[in-house]
């Protein structure tokens, strides 16, 4: 027996998270039956840090019926084949975490075991040579993948670099077209029902009120509803992820945009470089316990390539997660729910995951506790998973040139991550669960890139004679090289399909 449906959903905050939520809910609900209202104030800036995405965003866009090329033109987007990590393992070192597989599995054994075996036999070819997105990205080339599994061009995926604020605006148009009502105004008070402490209504500066059955907190770091009104509590992860500040600044493009994000490690954090069609996004994420703000700002400006287009803007955050993303009749989506530094470009993914889980466990007016608990449990797992993957980048390093890196090398990591590192270190097992966001190929890229090399390979790799394996490896490398060289330049693919009007 289904209980009565919700009559009104109120979304507080209109940044990327707010409009993603509004558009997705409007896409699945009949807004005549369940009204969706979004309150935002033009006076409050949005953070818009997450300018780099991961391929999971295709699912979101597809389900919303978004025309990808139209969206890319609107948001000045470029294509992304992976993330380049510079100076992470040690100064002077670099690797790429590509969106694709390495080589070809043979006889049911993962490719990297053959690579490991031949490395032991003296073949010094880096594993990158077996990744098409890696080789293509280094050549500055991009074209869409192919579906035919026999084609080497089926071995990669891609994501976008875009202006996250414009992506929000793009979704706003979509959401308003689907019946979402937007109210301009600053929320100054949150009224709770006296009997159960559920949110009853929000009061605007103008004096007006908006009531609802379900409230979505997209108000950013401060958590206007989930924390300031409901005091939900926050898990602080600074002992694992000491970075708690960032300076962000856009700069002029120098040359054609490359199809990858770059993350360069510094003395107490790292710097992102995100190439868009019309400018480059830069930011320095650092730990205030290990570096003064002036120094962090200076390092950022010294390490951007083009002319800065603005003054660096400061962001303060505490890495961690709200104790319950869904508390009473309030769901936190975006930074109000938790913050993880964008080292693996997961900010927008975590928004998307929260929205999709909310839809999966979409409540009726009873707002039953088991649904809420399951939602919280599943989202907690997502956050933990992303957190552990990010911690790996700090923990597995040879750097000891600053106090920050000495701390990271020596720190304890979550048990699950420690278990996984040990499993890989011993015999190259990087496959954990197919239901996770990061699968074997992602872990492999980061383990190897950060300098963790397994002590042994899968013994089944010995079933193929070494000479035959060597021949096949050479064939794969040649295929990949040739395929990469046959792709058009990244800028040519943009110009052909999705050039923004302003460039």
């Amino acid at each position, binding site marked *: 027996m*289904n209980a009565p*449906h919700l009559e009104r959903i109120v979304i507080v905050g209109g940044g990327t998270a707010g409009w993603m939520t509004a558009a997705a809910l409007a*896409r*699945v*609900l*009949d807004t*005549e*039956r*369940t009204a969706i209202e979004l309150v935002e104030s033009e006076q409050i800036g949005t953070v818009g840090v997450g300018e780099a995405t991961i*391929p*999971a*965003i*295709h*699912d979101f866009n597809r*389900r919303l*019926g978004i025309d990808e090329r139209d969206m890319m033109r609107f948001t000045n987007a470029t294509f992304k084949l992976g993330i380049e990590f510079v100076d992470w393992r040690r100064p002077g070192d670099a690797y790429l975490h*590509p*969106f*694709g597989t390495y080589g*070809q599995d043979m006889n*049911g054994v993962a490719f990297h075991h053959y690579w490991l075996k031949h490395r032991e036999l003296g073949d010094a070819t880096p594993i990158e040579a077996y990744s098409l997105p890696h080789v293509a990205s280094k050549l500055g080339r991009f074209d*869409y*993948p*192919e*579906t*035919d*599994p*026999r*084609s*080497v*061009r*089926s071995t*990669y*995926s*891609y*994501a976008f670099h875009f202006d996250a604020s414009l992506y929000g605006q793009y979704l706003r148009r979509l959401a308003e077209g689907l019946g979402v009502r937007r109210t301009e105004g600053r929320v100054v008070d949150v009224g709770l029902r006296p009997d159960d402490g559920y949110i009853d209504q929000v009061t605007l500066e103008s004096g007006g009120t908006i009531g609802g059955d379900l409230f979505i907190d997209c108000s950013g770091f401060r958590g206007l509803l989930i924390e300031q009104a409901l005091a939900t509590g926050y898990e602080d992860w600074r002992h694992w992820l000491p970075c708690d500040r960032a300076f962000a600044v856009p700069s002029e493009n120098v040359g054609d945009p490359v199809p990858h994000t770059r993350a360069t490690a510094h003395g107490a954090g790292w710097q992102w470089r995100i190439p868009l069609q019309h400018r480059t996004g830069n930011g320095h994420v650092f730990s205030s316990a290990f570096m003064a703000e002036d120094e962090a700002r200076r390092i950022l400006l010294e390490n951007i390539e083009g002319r800065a287009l603005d003054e660096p803007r400061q962001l303060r955050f505490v890495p961690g997660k709200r104790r319950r993303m869904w508390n009473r009749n309030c769901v936190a989506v975006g930074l109000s729910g938790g913050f993880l530094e964008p080292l693996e470009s997961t900010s927008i993914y975590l928004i*998307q*995951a929260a929205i*999709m*889980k909310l839809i*999966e466990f*979409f409540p009726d007016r009873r707002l039953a506790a088991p649904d809420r608990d399951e939602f919280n449990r*599943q989202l907690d797992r*997502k956050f933990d998973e992303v957190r552990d993957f990010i911690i790996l980048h700090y923990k597995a390093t040879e750097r000891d040139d600053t106090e920050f890196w000495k701390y990271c090398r020596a720190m304890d990591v979550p048990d699950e991550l420690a278990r996984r590192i040990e499993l890989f270190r011993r015999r190259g097992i990087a496959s954990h669960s197919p239901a*996770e*966001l*990061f*699968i074997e190929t992602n872990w492999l890229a980061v383990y190897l890139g950060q300098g963790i090399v397994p002590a042994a390979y899968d*013994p*089944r790799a*010995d*079933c193929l004679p070494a000479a035959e394996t060597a021949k*096949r490896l*050479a*064939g794969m490398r*040649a*295929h990949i*090289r040739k*395929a990469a060289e*046959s792709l058009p330049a990244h800028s040519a693919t943009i110009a052909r399909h999705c050039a923004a009007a302003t460039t």
Partner: protein
Amino acid sequence: MTGGPVRNVVVAGGGLEGWAVAAALANSLRGAGVTITVTELAGIAPGPAAEHVLPQTLDFFRHLGIDAAALVQDAGATFRLGTRRRDWPAPGIAPLVAFGRYGADVGFILSIIPGARGCPRTGQLFGHGDGSERKPNCPAISRGGSAAVAAGAWPVPGQYAHDEPAA
């Protein structure tokens, strides 16, 4: 006996389990220099004369290179689509638990949301959308014709030896 790869495996006991283990190991480790010995144990009663298996067992057959059709003939097998329970959960009731799914998912999300709009795509809810699945989860070009495949063809396992690597 420390370090180094395992060279000798002894399976104690034949029967269905012993020979299944031995066959799987021998198949996976063929050429890897591992000796597998099965010792039939005296005084152990034989296993059941008839067995029923789950669909997942077909994966095991495939792994071993067993032709399921030949097996049906040689072992006198019959096909199985599920289990019919009799008088369970109550006398007179005999529900069939079938190997398969019910219906098809509808639309973008679950169709259980009243008044939900349809959506052109079906599929899993995401939440674990993935950066690097084996198949691209992104818009991709589907081109028929062998020319396109030849241009970027991956050597197909098993045919690899015939596939000339690009110069």
